[in-house]
């Protein structure tokens, strides 16, 4: 079972994976908090559901974008080193 390729590419690929993975920890927690809090709020005041959902999706997208900053920077680091 021989693997081919050079150590440079291998280490860059590992770093790409690690950077994206670590970058996903924070937003993962954040997205969980956003959905959890919205469920809590709807549980308390079901009549505000529509308004809360709009804000929830906005907050979700803003938080989720942070993963993509990490992914983007990881791609940049992969491409230029």
């Amino acid at each position: 079972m021989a693997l081919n390729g050079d150590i440079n590419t291998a280490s860059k690929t590992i770093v790409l994976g690690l950077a994206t993975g670590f970058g996903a920890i924070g937003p993962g927690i954040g997205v969980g908090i956003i959905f959890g809090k919205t469920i809590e709020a709807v549980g308390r005041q079901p009549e505000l559901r529509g308004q809360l959902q709009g804000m929830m999706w906005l907050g979700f997208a803003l938080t989720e974008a942070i993963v993509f900053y990490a992914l983007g920077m990881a791609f940049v680091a992969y491409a230029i080193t």
Partner: protein
Amino acid sequence: MTLPLLASSTGFDPVSEFTNFVNDPYVNLPFGLDINKGVVYLWLSGALAILVPLLIIRKGLKAKPSRGQEFLEMVYDTAYTQIAKAGLPDEGMRIWFPYVATCFVFIWSMNLLGFIPLPFSGESIDIAGVTLPKLQIYAASANLSVALTLTLVTFFATHIEGIRYNGVVGYFKSWIPSGTPKPILPLLIVVEVLSQLVRLVSLSFRLFFNMLAGHLVIAVFLGVGALMAASLGNAAFAVHLIGWPMGIALYLLEATLIAALQAYIFAALSALYIGGAIHPEH
């Protein structure tokens, strides 16, 4: 990307699908205005965004709506109440509601078109002696140029409208909260200017990387078996048993939820930014 088949154990490179098409356009034109795969996808999604509502409306609108009309009314209602009303003040509604609604519909159709396999890959495959083009999924919005251009429209619209409604001095003064102590003023100016510029990056990167990462994840899950088989031997094709169900599940998630959500977010944030410039909070 070209959907990797079981038989191709020569390996495939998911990233190259998003970069290579720039170098071999269908038609070469001066000033880099080449017609390549991305441009064709933009045209198709533009046509989709215009023709589908047009055809439904031409069939006649009724008091008891058909399913098509119901769908159109839902899209309009979302664009009006959820996106435009939430961000734009009343005096900006007349000009900028059409813009944010167009953003919503156009980006949504770009994203949706990105999940329909179409024969634009430029590669072909022989099946029983007949040469057929390989099917491929590619989204026009999974392209930084497209996302950044749309973002620049919002960016300039924001500042031009801000200046038009508040005057040059009034608008730039509104960036800084009134009653700020003198010593921290320079710092605050730097932070505010930076935050305006970061909007460019955040708005375009969110759309671009959401679609790119979505397509990449689908490609990797569908092709992970073939990728591993290329270096580990044919036994690794068994990984497809896990990869394909995951890939199909992610495909469904992306095509139904993420495609609409990203269009909604882009339009809603555009409305918020433009509305915030017309009516500054401080």
